Structures are given as C-alpha cells and as structure tokens.
C-alpha cells in the first residue's frame, strides 16, 4: 500500500467508535508528515444509523471525501456495513471487516432481511477480504468498546509503510489516559490477529 496516496473508508454503526478511529488515523498521518483530510459524520446518523468516515492520506489531498471506487481500504466495524461500502472500494482493494452483526431496525421489525454469511460471501470478488471477530478480541482485552482499536491494529499490519511505533505513539495521544492500557492491549491484539492471517490476502 502506498502511504503517499492512501484512502481509507471507515464504516460502522453509530456508537461503535468510528470517529475515534478516524481521528487516530489522522494523527498517524500528521506524525508521518503527510497531508491528510478526515471527513466525519455528526448529528442524526449517529443515533444507531450507518456511519461513514473518510481518511485520505498523501502528499496533497483536495477532497475530504472518498467517492466511488476510490478507497484502498474499507475498514468495517460490522458485517453488513462492509457490503454497504463496497461501491467505494477500488477493484483490487482491501476490506477489513469485523464479523459482528448488529441488526438494523428494519431487520428487527421484519421488514427487511439481513443477508447470511456476508464476510464469507464477499470473498471471491475482485478485492481482498480479511474478516475477524473484533468484538470477541476486544472483550478479551477488557472492553467491548475497544472494537475500533482492535480493527486499527489489524489495519496497521496491512500498511507496513507506516512503522508500528508511529501508531503506538499516536494511540497514546488520542486515547484518554485511564483507558490507555486496555486500548494498547486491543491494538496489539489486532496486529497479532492480522499476522495470523498471513499477508492479508483472502
């Protein structure tokens, strides 16, 4: 992956901590001396809706938005959200997705269906998929709320151009001090899971 032109789309469900993830990535980019733009979603959609944030890192970034076919990586916090974001992904890009399923209200009420085995069925397309249970990993680290940092650990392993020390330093600056230890564990857990998956190919 090329850290001089890197587009990462983060998608999840309101309340899952996508904003912290995008700020974390923004801070990493600043430490690398890169230009960076981060687009966030606030307001209405945060109430349990689908939430997309865009992080663009490079030498000179214009638009803060990742448009169709522009993302090098889709980092998905929830299974079906990875599917929702596919249109943003470049052919040949990488999807890192949590296998956790959070049922949206139209599914809960029976009006719509949640597709089965999404991460598995995503594979075989013209892109790479890494799927993992980030929720279980976060719970093992001590808090279900660390799903975001576990996933960033996985992402960090996919971008060897950015040294792990930069990510670690950044983590310390974006996470509140009293939650730092748990989040450090979560980040390393994510890195280990990524390495267990080999070279991030499907």
């Amino acid at each position, binding site marked *: 992956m090329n850290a001089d032109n890197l587009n990462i789309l983060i998608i999840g469900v309101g309340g899952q901590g996508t904003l912290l993830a995008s700020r974390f990535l923004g801070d990493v980019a600043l430490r690398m001396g890169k230009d*960076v733009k981060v687009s966030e979603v606030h307001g209405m959609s945060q*109430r349990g809706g689908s939430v997309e944030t865009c992080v663009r890192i490079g030498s000179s970034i214009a638009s803060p938005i990742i448009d169709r076919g522009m993302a090098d990586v889709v980092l998905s916090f929830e299974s079906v959200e990875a*599917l929702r974001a596919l249109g943003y992904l470049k052919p040949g890009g990488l999807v890192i997705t949590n296998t956790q399923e959070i049922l949206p209200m*139209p599914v809960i*009420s029976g009006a*719509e269906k949640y597709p089965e085995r999404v991460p598995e069925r995503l594979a075989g*397309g013209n892109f790479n998929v890494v799927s993992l249970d980030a929720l279980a990993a976060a719970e093992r680290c001590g808090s279900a709320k660390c799903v975001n940092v576990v996933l960033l650990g996985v992402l960090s392993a996919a971008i060897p151009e950015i040294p792990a020390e930069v990510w670690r330093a950044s983590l310390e600056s974006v996470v509140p001090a009293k939650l730092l230890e748990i989040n450090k564990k979560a980040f390393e857990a994510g890195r280990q899971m990524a390495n267990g998956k080999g070279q991030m190919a499907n």
Partner: protein
Amino acid sequence: MGNTDKMDNSDKAKAVKLLLGNEAVAQGAWEAGVHVVSSYPGTPSTEITETLAKLPGVYCEWSPNEKVSAEVAIGAAIDGARAMCCMKHVGLNVAADPLFTAAYAGVNGGLVFAVADDPGLFSSQNDQDSRFYALSAHVPMLEPSDSAECFEFAQKAFELSEKYDTPVILRLTTRVSHSRSPVQTGARRVVPKKPYVKDISKYVMMPGMAKKRQAVVKERDRVLTEVADSWVRLVNPGRKLGIITSGICYQYVREAFPDASVLKLGMIYPLPERAIKEFAASVEELLVVEELEPYIENFVRQLGIAYVEGKKYFTPLGELGTEKIKNAYYGVSTPAAEAGENGGEKLSVDDAPHRPPTLCPGCPHRGVFYTLSQLKLRVTGDIGCYTLGAAAPYKAMDACICMGASIGMSHGMEKAEAVAKAEAGDTDPAAADNIRGTVAVIGDSTFMHSGITGLVNIVYNKGASTVIILDNSITGMTGHQQNPTTGKTIRMEDTHPVDLVLLARAVGVERVRIVDPFDLKAFKEAVLEEISADEPSVIIAQRPCALLKGVNYGKPVYIDTDVCRRCGACMRLGCPAIVKKGDGYGIDRSLCVGCEFCTQMCRFGAIRKES
C-alpha cells in the same frame, strides 16, 4: 528580554493541528480576539461554539434560539466588542430578522455570523442555500474550502467587518464543517474592545435613520464588489476549460478537472465582477461548479456571459463530489469493487438492509411514541431526536416542519376542525377523518427555542390543545448541549433553571402535570385525560436521556426462554436491543442499557434483570 519572552510564548502556541472546519473557525475567531459568542446548537455548526467555550478569555453562551444569539452578538458589537453567533442554515431563518437590520446599522466591534448549510440533508429538514441571505441582506459572505481557510477567513471576517462597518457571514457547509485538515495555529491576539460611542442615527433604525443607512449599504456593496476581486485564487491560468467555484466544490474540482483553469472565489457576496469577467474572457469553455442553487451561475449570466454552464450538468439537489462532477460532465463512472460468488448468490450493495437512525436503547421518548401509536392519536411533531417517532414501528407523527411548529400546527388543526364542525351541522368531520385527538410533541430545548410563543397563542386564542414537552434534561440530537431548563451553562456552571411547570402556568395553562414516560399506564392515562379536557394542557414527560453521564440503569435484562411465549409484544417497542433469535426473542447484551422499560410489555414476566 520582555520581547523575547513574548516571542517564545507565541512560538510555543504555534502548532499544526488536525482540526474540524468548525474547530478551525473557533480557533481563528479566538486568535482574532473574539470577546462574545452566543449561539444555538445545530448540526453542522455546533462544534464552533463548543470549541470556543473551552478556550480562555472569551465569553460563550448557548442562547434559547438563533434570533436571541444574533441579538446578543449585535449588542456586543455595538458596544465595541468582537462578537460572533453560530448557527445552522435553518437557524439563519430565525436570526434573519436581526440580520437584515444589523446590515443597515453596521457595527462597532467586528460582528460575524457563522452559518453552516447542510447540502444533502445529513441532519436537517431542508436543503436551503444561505448565500441568498447574503444577497438579499447585503451582507458580505466568505466561504472557506478547508480547515486552514476556516481559520484564516474567520480572522479576516472580523477585520472586514470593522473596516467596512458591516456584519460578515462566514458560510460553511457540512463537508467543510465536519472535515479535518491541518491548521497552523497560533496565539490569541489581545484586541481591546473599542470604546462605545452613542450614535442614534446609526443604531436606532427608525424609518428616517434607516433610509439614510440604506444609501450607506448601497455604497458599501459597491466598494466590497471591488474588494471581492482580491479574494480570488487563479489556478492553472490559460487553459481552454475554465471553472468558477468556491468552498468545498473547489476541492472536488481540483480532483475532477486537474488540468482546467480554476477561479476560486473566497468572497461570495458581493461577487467579484472584474475577476469573473477577466477569467471568462480567458477561457473557451466556462463552467460554474456549485452545490444547491445556481447562485454564482445566475450572477455570471447577469454579467452578460451567456456561454457559462453549470446546473445543466451539476444537480441542484444534495451535495456534489468528485465522482458526481466527473460523472455529470464526462458521463463516465469510476469502476468499483464487486463481490464474488463465493458460497451462494452474489451479493450486491443493494442486499445491505437499510440502517436508519433509531431511538437509542433506554431512550425516554420510546415510552411517549409507543403510547401515542397505541392510542392512534394525531401528532404534530418537532425537531430533535424524537422526530424519529415518525419512523417504524411507531409512525406516531403526522407533521414536522421546523423548530417550535408542533404547537402552532396543533392549534391550527384544532381550529380547522372546529370550523368544519360548525359548518357540518350534525356530522363530525373529525370522526370522518378518523381523528381521535391531536397532541403536540416538543423537546425541552425546542420548547425554549420557539415553543413558548405557540403555547401563549393557544391560551390567548382559547385553544384546548395538549402539548407534551419531552423533558430529557438535555439538548439531545446535536450531542448534549445545555439549555435554559437544565440548570447548567455551556461551561457547566450552575444557573437558574427554567421551571417548565411554572412557565406553563404563568402563560395561563392550568392543566400542567409531570409524568414519567416509562410508566406506561400512568402516561397513557395522562394523555387520555388531557386530550379530553376542554382547555389547554401541558404534559411534561420527564426522564433523562439514556446517554447522559450519571444515567446508569445497571445490568442488562434477559429473556427467560422457558417463560417466553414468543408473542412478540416486546418487539413493538422498537428497541434496538430486543432482537429476534430463531423462532423466539432475545436481548442484545452489548446494546441493552438495563432500563427495564420492556419488562412492562411482557404479560408472562419473561423479561428479567440480570443479577
């Protein structure tokens, strides 16, 4: 020595930070020495004031609405202070009255209106284009395209305001307000408040004085049209294709048309006539790329430049983006990833179920909307999280227009029914329309914003509406801001809270009661009693927002599957934490906050608190 110290300090303050556009506006205003900031929260503008409230040396407040906030800022500016008010686009409708006349009076200290439009309606009820306010109020408007410009333009807005004796509007859009990009920040400059000078002819806008100020405004427009020429940036001069743009669209244009000549406008009212004419003459093909209305395009045509195109290609609906612009102009679409056929049918993006926002687990509004949907009442709604009461499974809202409108609309419906009934004689038109009663539903902060006058109107004009004030102790939707009912200021200092009961009584409502919306039986009875009463009534549905710090319901609940009869009654609450599991139901522990509201729904006692 003293000088060296000062330089050290300012160097220390210098840092590159990754700021939201809104944070950059706040930083810019703060460094420009702003003294007084008064705002009403509204996505996507809220973080400007929240950021300023954390910085030293500036007075910040949440006011009850945008009109009041604008008036506070105007007063401070007349007094000689640098002042700012911040709002979303629809907030400017509320603040338009003071704005139009402040444009005549001018300022003493610098006065800035930061107004954030929301193209694409991420969190709004309409998609209006605030640039027309600048045009019709004759107030200069600046439009930044990233956080660095937010920072720069916010500072320059105060200078322009003082130099040309006018309020200045800083126009933002969601993608500028809510995007982060690097900003080189510095230290706050101490800008002493200007002396106050009494000047009746300037600040008292009666017809005689205002007519004279009108001429001043006209001349100011002329001068600023020339100033606007210095607010342009010319990129890639001398190409065949030329594009005029501003704000976030400039960033999209850089990507969509990397080889075109671009005239980027920083001041969008008045528009720079000379710069636009010269640019138009230098290119063979001329486009305007702008979101929403053809504001710049119409101006270019008015200059006699007939070959300009814009809305012919670029939709006036919603927001633009690099892909949309390329697609509209070149007619090509960028290829994207597609799922494979691994293990079954090929998935497409359309297979993803919708995920609309919902009331949170533990939300007190759930009790209100479940009850109103059960009672099949007609509900006039208002602006806040609780507008989600219109969504499934409640569908318990019939109309929602703007802040405070629920109360006026309910009164209007009641009066319309009364006229119809009088005309109809024996038949009951309400029964014919299947109307079982009407209630207005409004949040605590929205009631403070513009509900009070509606309530006064009901009492004054002998209405009998029932108004339900959803008092969740906070302004929820915009992310937990304090308001006059919460007893805290923006800086979390204790203050006198407005007593909603006393307020309702003071305007003449005698039937006022506080009910817990989580007590389903009591709440239903209260609503039934009040809608039958032949006089105005106010029900204060009181329970704090589940996301507030200090609200802790303890352990989640669970469904005892041995006891559960799979009747599905609990599902009718529309709580995201209650889910279908196999042929029965279960609780998603990661979402359940343990409020136990759902236990009332189960006749069999199958929903229990975890021990």
